[in-house]
Structures are given as C-alpha cells and as structure tokens.
C-alpha cells in the first residue's frame, strides 16, 4: 500500500523532495544569469545609439534604445549587388537542403553501423571517429580541389553537398541507436521487415530526441554556411556573407555588426526552441523500448 502511494506521489521517480528541486532551480538560475549576460549585452549593444557607446561608466542597458543599427544593416545590405531577399532565399534553400539531406543520410548510416551485421562495420565506425579527430588546414585545400574538379564552383551544389555527410551526425545517431535492444530489431526481422523498413518504421520513431538534436546541429551549421571561396556569383551568395559585408561597410560599425550578429541568431534560436519542445514532448507520452 505504502509502495503504491509513494509511486503515485512521485510519478514513478524515486524520492523527489520539493526542496531539492527548488535548490536545483536556484542554482541553475544563478548560472544562467552568468551564461546569458554576454548575450544580453549583445542585444543591448545592438539597440544602443552610437552616442551611448562611450558613456562612462559602461551601462548594462540602453538609455535610449533604437533600431537604427538594424535599419542601417538592412540599408547597407539592400545596396549590395542583388536584392536582400535573394540572399535570404539562398540561405533558406541551402539550410533546408543540408538539414534534410544530413538527417536522411546520417540516420540510415547510423542505424546500419549500430545494428547491421556486415563485414567492415567496425572499420567504418573507427574511420568516422578518426575523421572527427583529424583536423588540418590542408583538408580545406583538398576540399576546394575536389569541388573544383567536380565543376561545382559557382553552383548551389558547392554550398550544399560538402555539408551533407558529417561524421559527427552519424556518430551521435549511432550512439543513440545502439541503446535500442537487439531483441527489437530481431522481432522486426521475424515479422519480415528488411533493414530499410526496420530503420524508418521501428527505430526512427523511437529516436526523436537524437534526431531532433541532429537537426539542431545541422540547421545551425547550414545556416552559417558562408559562400566563401566556392561561390563568386553574387546571386548565389548566402545571408551570412551578405550580412558580414553589410556590417563591415556602415559608419556605426560596431553597432551594426552587433545588430547583424543578433539578427543572424534569431532563426537558429527559433528552430532550437521548436526542436527542443519536441524532444521533451516525446518523453512525456511514450515509454516505448522494451
């Protein structure tokens, strides 16, 4: 009887004291203030008029907040070679393509690498970790040569294809999928499902937290793809490039640069919140896994 009432009281979690949770909340809140302070200051600086930049002592708020920096950024960006909307469209397209392609390829590869039985799976797993660890300047040069050889310079392909396969994404998904009991995969096989169907119909619906996390990483990296040295055609360039150009040209540079940084941060933050909500919702009503 006591056992049952205890279970009900804590909804299945052992001995939760209310005071403990409050302590955790206060601790996290204090840390969050420190973590958020620079971001808060970035926002404050983006709305500070230029005459407030050198006030002494430095203020933690804007006395006379203004959107001038943002206006200046859009004005400068509007004077670039092609309309601002073109850069936005390019970035949206590149981000969507990279995010979807990355999740699709990484999920399948990760499932196979975690649960598939075939020669070479161990070897591939270690190749993926090694490629994460090896970083060198020369890689960028060779990547450029590969892209040039494939005739992809000055195409969308140069912005999208190199970011499709990331070892980090596969590694993340593989680690998560490896937690699924083998019995579940075997059961699916007995029911006649092949690897492909097992992956998409049985495993992936259980992998929402990892998949959402992968999407956040993919979105974030894709959103920041700079046209850099692969694209010279102005009409193919992405938003980060345009915003960087705009921020570097105006008069009140520091303020405009800050406005650009804050502006570029908005879409990833919105995406993040949507995806995280989804992660947390999953937990609430599914206790799948056996």
């Amino acid at each position, binding site marked *: 009887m006591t056992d049952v009432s205890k279970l009900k009281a804590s909804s299945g979690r052992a001995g939760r004291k209310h005071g403990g949770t409050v302590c955790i909340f206060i601790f996290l809140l204090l840390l969050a203030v420190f973590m958020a302070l620079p971001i808060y200051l970035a926002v404050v600086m983006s709305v500070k008029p230029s005459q407030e930049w050198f006030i002494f002592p430095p203020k933690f708020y804007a006395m006379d907040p203004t959107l001038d920096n943002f206006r200046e950024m859009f004005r400068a960006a509007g004077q670039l070679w092609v309309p601002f909307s073109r850069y936005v469209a390019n970035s949206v397209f590149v981000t969507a393509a990279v995010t979807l392609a990355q999740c699709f390829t990484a999920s*399948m590869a990760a499932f196979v690498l975690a649960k598939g039985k075939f020669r070479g799976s161990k070897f591939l797993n270690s190749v993926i970790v090694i*490629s994460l660890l090896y*970083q060198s300047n020369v890689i960028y040069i*060779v990547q450029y040569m590969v892209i040039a050889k494939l005739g992809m310079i000055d195409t969308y392909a140069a912005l999208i294809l190199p970011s499709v396969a990331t*070892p980090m994404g596969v590694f993340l998904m593989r680690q998560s999928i490896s937690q699924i009991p083998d019995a579940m995969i075997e059961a699916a096989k007995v029911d006649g499902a092949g690897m492909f169907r097992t992956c998409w119909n049985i495993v992936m619906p259980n992998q929402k937290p990892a998949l959402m996390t992968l999407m956040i990483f993919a979105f974030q990296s894709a959103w920041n793809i700079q046209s850099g040295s692969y694209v010279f055609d102005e009409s193919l360039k992405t938003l980060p490039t345009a915003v960087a150009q705009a921020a570097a040209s105006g008069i009140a540079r520091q303020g405009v640069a800050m406005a650009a940084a804050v502006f570029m941060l908005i879409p990833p933050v919105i995406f993040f919140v949507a995806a995280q909500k989804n992660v947390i919702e999953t937990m609430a009503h599914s206790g799948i896994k056996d």
Partner: protein
Amino acid sequence: MKPEKNRKKRSYNRSESIECWLMLAPFLAFFVLFTVIPVLISLPVGFTDFDMINMPHFTGLSNFKNLFLSDRIFIRSIRTTLIFAIFSGPVSYVLCFMLAWLINELPKHLKTVFTLIFYIPSMASVYTVWQLIFSGDQYGYVNSVLMDLGILTSARQWLTDSRYILFVVILVQLWISLGAGFLALRAGFQNIDKSLYEAGAVEGIKNRWQELVYITVPAMKPQMLFAAVMQIVAAFTADIVGRNLVGFPSTDYAAHTVMTHAYDYGWVRYEMGYSSAICTVLFLVMYGVNKLITRLLAQED
C-alpha cells in the same frame, strides 16, 4: 578455432549485407568525397615542403625534427594547449553532464528555457561583447565593476597582459563549450526508459543521487562517450576563441595553442607542409587520449 571462424563468416547474411551497404551508400558517397579523400591526401603532406605554389617535395622527418628540436614557440604552444585542455576539457565535460542532469530534474517548460540559455553561447559569435567586457580601459565592464566595488584600484589589461590572457580565454572557451556534447546528453536523458526508474523505485532506490548512479549513468554510456569525444576535439583544437579575443599573435604567445601555431604556418606563412606536420602531431595525441577515455567509459559498467 576453425569452426568458430566459420560460424562467424556465416552470420553475415548476404542479402542483409547488401541492404546495409545500400543504406550506407548515400552517406558514404559524400563522406568519402568530401572528408575521407581530403584527409587521406592531407596526411602525407606533413612529410613534404608543400608551400601552395611549388610542387611538394618529400622531406622525410625533417618537419618533425624541426618542430621538436628547434621550434621553441611550438614547445611553448604544447604547454599552453595542455593547460588549456586540462582546464577546459574535464571541467566543461563535468559541467555538460551535471547541467544536463539538473535540467532533467526540472518541470517541462523550464527544461527548454534552461537548455536554450546554456546552449545559445555555442550558437552565437559575440567576441566583440567579450572584448568590451574585458576591455583594458575603464570602459570595460569587468574593470568598471571591480573598481566600483573597490576590489581593483586601477584598470587591468585583461586581454593584453600575458598574466591574464590564458585565464580569460579559458573562461570564454568554457562559456561556449556547452555545445554538441551538452545537447547530446540532454537528448540522452530524455531517451531513458521511464520504466527503469519505476523499477528502481520499487527496488528501493531512495533519492535522485542513487538514481543517477545506479540507473542513469549506466543507461547514458553512449551519449557520455559522444560528449567525451566532442570535448576532446574542442579542448585540443582550441584556437579560434583565442585568436578572436586576444588577437593574433597574442602578447608573449600567451594564448598560442598548437592549433594557432598550425594556423600561423598554414595561412600566414603558407608553409603547409610544416603546418600539416603540426596537425599530425596533435592528431596522434588526440587519438591516444580518445583511446584512453573510450576504455575508461567502457570499463565503468
């Protein structure tokens, strides 16, 4: 021995193998083209004198000899990188895990808010703000606040005095380090089977600490390994934060890490062969540390 080998061979089902390779194909195509080939071509460059203009010549181990025998700045950068890695690596790993766990103990809507606040720094690039915070004059927030409180009597040169540089760079590195590893751990916590906790409660687990040690940690091994690899990479290849914050080169090379040294030789002097040798040395160290940690995490259970 022999029959066992045979059995092992037979356990690879032919049609399943083919299906596996087909499912791997889309990833592998891009992975080989844009990662594996570049890495394979980069590896031997450390043994040449490649300078991006002339055809590279094979120079044997001379790059590595120079590195360890006559490059004093490299030896210094190893020290800096190690200090950096020791402080930022384990500290941020523990932070990632602890915060991911504490957030998991909160009610639903607070989870999203705190996860966002801790993760935003790794999305934003706001070095300018940090430069203002640690600015060496009285306009710097840190100087201004500390002088107001009477802790400091005069402004400190946080970003140019070699006594403080490393401390400031490590602090900012820690600030942005709640990234991929942290988020993966958060996802891991969400994915733990609830029935495990219910079973634990029935079997006499009394509080959240016991729950953490006996149920959560064992169930989180894969994510913990992922986070560890991410932290190793971030700690050993640290470079961008330093260059953006205290400039390049930093005063007295105080924030000059191994990766900064590779950047210096690669993109400033175009001595790609030498730069590549530096990266190879760093890779070998990271590979060793990774092996060690993988073994540690695997043994724990």
